[in-house]
Each structure stands twice: as C-alpha cells, then as structure tokens.
C-alpha cells in the first residue's frame, strides 16, 4: 500500500514546533496520471529497443518506479540535535 500522508515535524532553533500533514494521495494522482500517460511511449520505446536487448530493461525499470512509490509506506526519518529537529514519516 502506498503512503497516503506525509507527516512532517520541524523544531527550530528557538524550540518552536511546526507540524504538517501532507496529503500525498493528491501528489500520487498527478504522478500516476503522468506515468499512465507516459506508458504508451515507454512501451513504444521498449518495442523499438527490443532487438538491442534493452527493451525489457525499459519495461522493468518502468515498473520498478511504481514499486518504489508503492513501498515508501513506513519510511521514517528522525534527525535531532540539541536545538533543532526534523521528523518525517510516510503513512
């Protein structure tokens, strides 16, 4: 399942906390639309390059991009120093 929200929390030098929920599903809608629009061109390029042996690689790379997006869910990055901090979570 792809992440639907990105939770961002930033603590600045003065100790103030900023929290933000970003609805990723809106961004995914745009990205997936672009990927789907690009699909015919990708398959066409793959067909042209099939004899050279790179056609299969183009198709596999195309699906690998999908795979990276879908598996981003659960990623968490937390960096904190004495005064500042950043917290990113994909949910």
């Amino acid at each position: 399942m792809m992440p639907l929200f990105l939770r961002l929390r930033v603590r600045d030098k003065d100790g103030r906390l900023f929290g933000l929920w970003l609805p990723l599903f809106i961004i995914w809608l745009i990205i997936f639309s672009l990927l789907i629009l690009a699909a015919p061109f990708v398959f066409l390029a793959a067909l042209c390059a099939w004899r050279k042996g790179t056609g299969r690689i183009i198709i596999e790379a195309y699906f690998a991009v999908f795979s990276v997006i879908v598996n981003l869910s659960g990623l968490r990055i937390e960096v904190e120093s004495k005064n500042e901090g950043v917290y990113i979570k994909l949910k």
Partner: protein
Amino acid sequence: MNEERKKILELLSEGKINADEADRLISAIEGTGSTDEDQAKSASASFPKYLRILVEPGENSEKQERVNIRVPVKLIRAGLKLASFIPKDAQHKVNEALQEKGIVADFTKLKPEDLEELLQQINDLSVNVEGKETVKIFCE
C-alpha cells in the same frame, strides 16, 4: 471441505477403503497441511520488515545529534532493483563518488537476481559501532 478430504470420504462411502485407512489418510493430509502453514508462518516471521539505523551521541560528543531512520525492507528491494537499471557509465561515476567518501562498493556488479539473497542476509545484520557516537544498524 477441501478436495482431498472429499475424495477420501467418497472412497470410504464406495467401500474402496475402510474406516481405518480413511482415518490414516485424513490425518496424513492434516499433517502435511499444518507443516506447510507452519513453514509459511515461520518464513514470514523470520523475514524482517524494516532496517533501522540509530545514531546516538556519546557522552563526549560535541554535536549531540540523534538520528533514527526506519526503512522498509520492501523499499530497499525496490530501490536496489531500480538501481540495477542505472546505465554502467553512471554506475562507475557513483562508485567513484563513493570511493572518494571512503566507501568501497561496486554497483556495477549488482544484479536483480542477487537481491533476494542479499535481503535474506540482511535479516541477520546487526552492526554496533561505538566511538564519539554510537551507531546501531539492525533489522526488525
């Protein structure tokens, strides 16, 4: 009721096997079924879900920075697969850049078929480095 059990009961009703034989066959099927389930459960339980990287400052550390990263193993798998499609020339450049930073790794030798083995080995990975900062890398 599954197909195998149904067939045994049909053989029993037709008189081709007796009750004892039917009992033995059913218990044999149940035995095999539970073993498969157990194996699947243990395999999924042993496979890690996340790779964790923790950096904690030591007592004498000046920076006092803490890093806590959790990367899904599925993302590593997908990322490595995508990385294997990077053209060889670009991979050489990545290798050179890593070597400049003191990391000796050859990404040109990374193949998609090696990924499964690599990910299975990650399960047992546990690195503890203690210096100015304590670095822990493990799977969970």
